[in-house]
Every structure is written in structure tokens, then in C-alpha cells.
């Protein structure tokens, strides 16, 4: 009982509708391409952009003199010797143009005295980070790009499309993709002259994370299975002060960062003592602590028995007046009050939370991946941020890389007369989306995802050892056995709408291979650098100032790039 797939044909396929995907779609269309923009969730609603309440770094130089080379220097310094210089340069040089284009489109950057105002985020040498009040940056960016797309008839948009695999053409180039429509269960084929991966990162692999729950590393898995390599997969950025307690409903867990930009705030241990100076940084009421150091400091305090009641640290704004809190955050103060939080009278508890992924698909500064016809944009790209991303660079890279990828994809599409999906190359993926499944199987996919998130949080968090990482690999392998290689169909009929368990089966298929890539890379990197900290290899070693690559060969992940002397350990 196989359904005939619904066949789409387009010049440029964009997978993912965060800022990178939407900007890519807009730019590809400006380049003369017909665009099909697919998202596994609703258009412009899932992913990371809409959750980004913080700032966007760009050397506008409107308030204080600035130039892209200063932004570049800070980006490189934060990356602990591992930034891809070409990508970092592109990011910094094109950031101002993207920020100004969004300004012209009406995003509403906060202004002072008739110019766009900026704040100094940690790691920047000057005020360089623009934002939309009140902590509304990501939603405003998302809405603006959606509105620009709505006026454009050459961009066809489709939510609820789960892409399961890229499909190769006759010469090994990427010729489109196979997926299914979650709303109806129908298989879908998309033939495309160029494809842009804009699927974001992998924070869903972790129990506590700061992005949307539909971001489980899909693009990394699609790229691996298509034969592309990933780099730097061991570098998962943890945001040090994710909200922990009391229970806070209706707010992003990373909301305390903008509070710290504007008001400083004091980070205290369970004994209400300042502690960051023990770890090499004296805050002195200002917010200057880099993310990797702050994460380290909080973990070590908790480990020493000096954590807050829920296992984190206290963040206090009790020294701020009600008037200054209100002036800085307006309606947000009311939302906190609805959660019974009065910052003038109580600290909140914070703890590190999975936030961003530095690693990803290899791409050059034209956003061309190793595979002809396949481009990548945004967080799914690896390398620009090295071992530790500078604050404010995530939305910047989404915009800059998205725009560049859209331009490159449109130019590539122009060189190709027509693209068809070859039946032989699409058949395996089509068999999978059309698989009626084993009705007798009782598989709790929601619980399996929760178990994977627990493994990753407990064993592949910011502080790693060989023992923990090996335990994680065993746990991931057990989950893969349980998943098996056929998608069950839970909702009954083949055409059942919104079979969430079937969607989760495809999610787990991706999440498990990506979890393996992160864990194996972390096990192989026998040093500590940036976001990757090994308790059994605590030094940063010059020999390791290099990228590890991961590729899939015969079902196994192959790593390369380690220095010769590290292989002996």
C-alpha cells in the first residue's frame, strides 16, 4: 500500500525556515530563482531564530567607531584558535549590510539619537551588538523575513514537510530530496537544481536546551548520509546562565543575558558568595565573563557542594531599583510578576544549558559544501566560530550565510537546464517514507528521545571524560538497536495526519547519528579547548589546533584530522 509521491520541481530548495533559510529564499529569488522553502514545523516559527532574545553583532560603527576587522579579531579570539578564517571574515564583513537591510525592511532595531544603538556583549571590545526591545530580537527578525517573503510570489512555502534524505543526481551532485508531509502522511519528492541546508543546530539532543524542540541536528544527518563531511562536532556551546528555578512559564530560558547586558547582576553560589574570581575572572558588577569560563565556574561550584538548591548558581538583581528594572525591561517585569518573581527581593537560579553548536557541515565562503548542488547556511555550517562562539554571532551568521547561500544557489541553478530525481537514487528514501511499518511494534519514541537527552546531558555535557563518553556511546547504540531500521506507523492508516510518533522515529534516526558524531569527536579530542573540556585531558595543546572531520562510510562514522601524537593515547 504505497502512496504515489507528490512531486515538486524547483530551482532552489531551501530546507529550514529560520533566519538563514528565509534570507536564503529571499536572496535566491532576487537572483532569479524559483524557490521552494520547506520546514518540518510551521514557517518561521520553529528553530532557533524565533527563540533568540538577545543581540546581533555587527560593526556598524554608528555609536562608536568600529570596523569589521575589530569584530573579526574578537570572533577569532573567542574561537580559541579554531575559527575558519574565511567564514569568520565573511561573517564580520557582511554583517553591517545585512543589519541595514533588515532595518530597511522594518525590523525595528533599538535606536538612540536617530541611530541604531548597540550594547557590549561579553567578548566584544566595544558596543557592537544590536537588538530589538524588549528582548524581542529573534521574533522581530523572524517576522520581518516572513513578511518580506509574503510579498514574493517566486517563493513557495510549505510547513509540516519532514525531509528525510537528500538525493544524488547522475554525477554525485545533490539533485533534491525526499520527504513526507506530516499533515497528511503523503510522501513528497522535490527535484531541485540547488539545495540549501538551513536546518540549524542540535540542541534538542540535550535535556535542558535553549532552542526549539524541533532542532535535533537534521541537517548534519542529511549531509552525512549524502556523503558530506562535518567538522568540529565536539564543540557544543553551553549557555552558562540558563534559567533553572523557580519554574518560569512563557519566557525563554536564556532571558537573563539581556538583563546582564543592561543591569550587570551578581552571580552567587549557594552560600550567596561571589565565586567567579576563583576561576580567573573578577566580574566587579559588570558582565564580562566569557561563556566557557562561566559554565566552568558554575559546574565546579556545584561539584564542590556550593551550588544553589536546584543545582546551579544564584543570579541576583536585588541591588537594582524597581524603577531601573522597569526602565530596562518594561512589560517583561510584568511577565516575571505573573511567575511570582520580584527581582528586587529575590535571586533566581541559573545553570548551564545547551545553547548552540559550533560544529557542522563543511562549507566555503560561497556556502558551497563538498557536494555540488548542496549549499549550507546558518548554524548548520561548521567552522566560523571555532571552539567557542562569540556572543551575538549566531543571528549574524544566519543572516550573512543565508544571504550568501541564496545568492550562490541561484547562480548555480542558472547553470543547470533541468533537474529530475533519478528513481534509482531516490528509491531507498521513498521506500522508507512509504513503509507501512510493523503494526505490532510497541515503541515509545517520546521516551526514547527523553532517554537520549539524558545520556547527552549527563555524559556528553560541557565536562567530559573517556569513561563518560564511552558510556554515552553504549547508550546511543542501545537506542539505535531499539529504533531498528523501519519506521513504525502508529496512527493507523497510511494517510493518517500528524503521526507524531512516526515523525519522532525519523527525528531519532537523525538524532542518534548526530549524537554519535558529537560523542566520537569528543572522545578523540584528547585536550581541552573552548566548549570542549576533558577532565582527563585538561590542557589546551598546540598540536590540537586543528579540525576533526567526520564522515559516514559503510554505516560507520570515520574521524580524521587528529594530530599523529594524539592517536597513540
Amino acid at each position, binding site marked *: 500500500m504505497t502512496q504515489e509521491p507528490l512531486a515538486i520541481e524547483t530551482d532552489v530548495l531551501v530546507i529550514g525556515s529560520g533566519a538563514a533559510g528565509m534570507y536564503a529564499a529571499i536572496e535566491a529569488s532576487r537572483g532569479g530563482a524559483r524557490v521552494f522553502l520547506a520546514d518540518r514545523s510551521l514557517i518561521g516559527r*520553529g528553530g532557533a531564530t524565533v527563540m533568540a532574545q538577545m543581540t546581533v553583532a555587527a560593526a556598524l560603527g554608528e555609536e562608536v567607531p568600529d570596523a569589521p576587522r575589530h569584530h573579526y579579531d574578537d570572533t577569532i579570539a573567542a574561537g580559541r584558535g579554531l575559527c575558519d578564517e574565511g567564514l569568520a571574515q565573511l561573517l564580520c564583513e557582511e554583517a553591517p549590510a545585512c543589519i541595514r537591510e533588515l532595518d530597511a525592511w522594518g525590523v525595528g532595531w533599538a535606536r538612540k539619537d536617530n541611530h541604531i544603538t548597540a550594547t557590549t556583549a561579553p567578548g566584544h571590545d566595544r558596543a557592537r551588538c544590536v537588538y530589538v526591545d524588549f528582548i524581542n530580537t529573534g521574533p522581530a527578525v523572524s517576522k520581518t523575513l516572513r513578511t518580506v517573503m509574503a510579498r514574493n510570489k517566486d517563493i513557495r512555502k510549505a510547513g509540516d514537510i519532514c525531509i528525510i534524505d537528500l538525493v544524488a543526481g547522475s554525477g554525485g551532485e545533490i539533485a533534491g530530496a525526499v520527504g513526507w508531509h506530516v499533515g497528511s502522511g503523503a510522501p513528497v519528492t522535490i527535484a531541485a537544481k540547488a539545495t540549501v541546508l538551513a536546518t540549524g543546530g542540535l540542541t534538542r539532543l540535550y535535556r535542558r536546551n535553549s532552542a526549539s524542540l524541533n532542532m535535533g541536528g537534521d541537517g548534519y544527518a542529511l549531509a552525512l548520509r549524502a556523503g558530506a563531511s562535518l567538522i568540529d562536532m565536539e564543540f557544543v556551546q553551553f549557555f552558562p546562565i540558563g534559567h533553572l528555578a523557580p519554574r518560569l512559564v512563557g519566557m525563554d530560558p536564556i532571558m537573563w543575558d539581556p538583563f546582564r547586558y543592561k543591569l550587570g547582576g551578581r552571580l552567587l553560589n549557594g552560600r550567596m558568595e561571589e565565586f567567579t574570581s576563583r576561576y580567573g575572572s573578577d566580574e566587579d558588577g559588570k558582565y564580562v565573563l566569557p561563556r566557557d569560563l562561566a559554565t566552568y565556574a558554575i559546574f565546579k561550584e556545584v561539584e564542590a557542594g556550593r551550588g544553589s538548591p536546584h543545582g546551579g548558581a544564584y543570579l541576583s538583581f536585588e541591588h537594582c531599583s524597581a524603577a531601573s528594572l522597569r526602565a530596562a525591561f518594561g512589560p517583561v517585569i510584568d511577565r516575571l510578576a505573573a511567575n511570582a518573581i520580584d527581582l528586587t527581593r529575590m535571586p533566581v537560579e541559573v545553570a548551564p544549558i545547551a545553547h548552540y553548536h559550533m560544529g557542522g557541515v563543511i562549507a566555503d565562503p560561497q556556502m558551497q559544501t563538498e557536494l555540488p548542488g548542496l549549499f549550507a547556511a546558518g548554524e548548520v555550517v561548521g567552522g566560523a566560530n571555532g571552539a567557542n562562539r562569540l556572543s551575538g554571532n549566531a543571528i549574524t551568521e544566519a543572516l550573512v550565510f543565508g544571504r550568501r547561500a541564496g545568492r550562490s544557489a541561484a547562480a548555480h541553478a542558472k547553470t543547470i537546464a533541468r533537474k529530475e530525481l533519478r528513481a534509482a537514487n531516490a528509491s531507498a528514501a521513498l521506500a522508507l517514507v512509504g513503509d507501512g511499518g510493523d503494526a505490532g511494534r510497541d515503541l515509545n519514541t517520546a521516551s526514547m528521545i527523553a532517554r537520549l537527552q539524558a545520556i547527552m546531558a549527563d555524559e556528553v555535557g560541557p565536562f567530559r571524560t573517556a569513561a563518560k563518553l564511552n558510556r554515552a556511546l553504549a547508550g546511543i547504540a542501545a537506542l539505535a538497536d531499539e529504533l531498528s531500521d523501519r519506521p513504525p506507523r502508529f496512527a493507523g492508516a497510511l494517510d493518517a495526519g500528524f503521526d507524531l510518533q512516526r515523525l519522532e522515529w525519523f527525528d531519532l534516526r537523525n538524532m542518534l547519528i548526530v549524537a554519535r558524531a558529537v560523542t566520537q569527536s569528543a572522545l578523540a579530542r584528547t585536550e581541552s579547548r573552548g566548549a570542549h573540556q576533558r577532565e582527563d585531558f585538561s590542557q589546551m595543546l598546540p598540536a590540537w589546533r586543528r579540525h576533526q572531520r567526520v564522515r559516514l562510510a559503510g554505516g560507520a562514522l570515520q574521524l580524521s584530522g587528529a594530530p599523529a601524537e594524539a592517536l597513540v593515547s
Partner: protein
Amino acid sequence: MSAVATLKIRRGGHGEPARWQTFEVPFEPGQSVLDGLRWLRINKDPTLAMRFSCINANACKECMIQLDGETVYACTARLEPREMTLTPLPNKTLIRDLVTEIAPPSERFK
């Protein structure tokens, strides 16, 4: 005895007769209805269909359902230790269980 919230949920796909199912989920003060639904899927019935993405940030607007006849976001509505009736949006096309077609027409696959 620990407190529980009782979730009475309208189940069924498009064009199917509605069936009602009642689940008890653990209640802790401060939790959202979405917390209860996610607990239910992990621990009791993963076949329950619902939309959710940002979990508790009030950002994605995907988890719109009706609670006791009022339209709410499941991620911001508070779980309470009583019977709570959860139904899909009545003015949108039902897809399955609590999922309705909420995307604007120009952003749907067709």
C-alpha cells in the same frame, strides 16, 4: 498522596468520531499544561498528537489549543490539580487529536 492533574482530551483524526480519553499526570505548582502533555506522551501514551516547538517561551505559538473552552497556549496555561478539558481549536480544520491546521494558507503544503 501527591497531587495530580486530570487531563480530559478529545482524541481522533479528521472525519473520525471524537473519543474522549482521561489521563492523570503528576502536578507540581508552576507547571504548564504543555509540561503535563509532554509527561503524558513520554510516560503514558506517545500516540497523542500535538504541536509544540519552543516549549515555554511563548515564541512559536504552535501549541494553541482550547482549555475548558478557552483558546490558550498550552505552554503558558498553568496546569492545575483538577480536571482540565483539552480540545483542538474549533474554528480550524482538525488534523488529529489536539492538532489543527493553524498555518496561514500561503505557508501550507498544497
